[in-house]
């Protein structure tokens, strides 16, 4: 949103949210080239290790081109009904500082049209909310799953009509480290006046139970505990909207889901 506010007609204010994403937002998607590859090796049935890589532009096409580069390792190990699966991902966003400057410059240059004596000297102020944009994010998740089906449930509605229903208990742990996470950027007249970054950590633990009557349908119930650095808000590193100021660094959540496959 870009506007001048009463009583200062000589000041143009812009509030912008920049969220990193993939692609160039261009109509011609072919101009946004990206490379993605995954190499997997499965020594035995049910076990797999793999490495993957992504390289692609994350800036819109009206800004300078900067790539996001990501590599990851993942693996899975199965012992009968018990599975462990996990992944480590390391991602860099290049030229974050330059992207912010370029964005502010573009906003100023594209919108500063004035008329009249009182607005001849137009001052531009641009405030950014750089949602989840960081120089580097790295983290991992690991899932422990156990599949089972108590025989007595075959006599109930949960099992009577299905040949291979399953209950799947899950414990999941994940951590993400944010390096150079931008929390505020401000420009006045095209000059950088504020550029604050910080390092953050996000922890999450999930306990869940899923009921899968057939492979393409699952009902899930899970409890999730999410926590970031004490005194910091979860809203800057997750999509949570926290309520209480003194408790906004952690959150309890109950998740319910229904999944269909087609």
């Amino acid at each position: 949103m870009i506007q001048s506010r009463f009583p200062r007609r000589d000041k143009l204010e812009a509030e912008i949210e920049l969220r990193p994403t993939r692609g160039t937002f261009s109509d011609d998607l072919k101009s946004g080239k990206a490379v993605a590859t995954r190499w997997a090796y499965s020594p035995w049935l049910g076990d797999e290790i793999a490495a993957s890589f992504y390289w692609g532009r994350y800036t819109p096409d009206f800004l300078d081109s900067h790539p996001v580069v990501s590599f990851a390792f993942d693996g899975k190990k199965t012992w009968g009904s018990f599975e462990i699966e996990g992944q480590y991902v390391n991602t860099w966003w290049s030229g974050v500082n330059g992207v912010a400057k370029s964005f502010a410059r573009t906003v100023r240059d594209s919108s500063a049209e004035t008329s009249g004596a009182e607005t001849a000297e137009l001052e531009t102020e641009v405030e950014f909310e750089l949602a989840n944009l960081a120089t580097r994010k790295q983290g991992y998740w690991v899932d422990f799953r156990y599949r089972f089906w108590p025989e007595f449930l075959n006599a109930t509605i949960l099992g009577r009509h299905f040949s291979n229903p399953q209950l799947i208990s899950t414990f999941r742990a994940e951590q993400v480290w944010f390096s150079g996470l931008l929390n505020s950027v401000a420009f006045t007249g095209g000059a950088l006046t504020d550029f604050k970054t910080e390092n953050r950590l996000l922890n999450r633990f999930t306990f869940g139970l899923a009921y899968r009557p057939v492979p393409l349908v699952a009902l899930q119930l899970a409890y999730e505990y999410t926590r970031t650095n004490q005194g910091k808000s979860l809203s800057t590193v997750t999509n949570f909207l926290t309520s209480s100021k003194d408790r906004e660094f952690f959150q309890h959540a109950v998740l319910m889901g229904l999944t269909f496959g087609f």
Partner: protein
Amino acid sequence: MKVLGKWFWLVCLLSSLETPFLATAQEGSFLKEEEAPKAVFPEATSFDRKVIRSTEELKEKIRQRMGKNKTSLWEDSYVTFVAKKGELTLGYAVIVEEIGKHRPITFIVGIGSDRKIKDSALMVYREAYGGEVRDRRFLQQYKGKELKDPLLPYRDIQNISGATLSVEAIGRGSKKALALVDIIYFEGLERK
């Protein structure tokens, strides 16, 4: 970024090399009918081909033997083979079909004289995904299985992630073949 550029082109090169060798289509026709019995009974010297017409009576008997495993399609008839080495009967092979996700998977199941699965082989796979069920290491799991076994993923069969429906189809088809051989050859419905 210069170093990154070198890596970028290296990855492009490796990805392009990967394509023709590894990223092959999963659907395909892998065995003809005349080749199929030899794939499950390589030691056999002759095969007697017999076509068993499906009837309501036969379907009912198969249904009873399959229990909670319900077939996804009923064939009009079953192509079966009696595998022999000289005068000795080694076992029986049945060509069956079961629907994976959307389309039928055609495969042959070889059953020994001990009423246990001796081997299986995929003949035609028509889905774009889940073709890993053709792998020898997957099909080997069915060796030694018999009619009373569940033949289900996460029970007595190691599942393949992303191919669960195809894995279930192979289990159902194997059970159908076991039931058919049990009815036709071991209980002698054919002779009645």
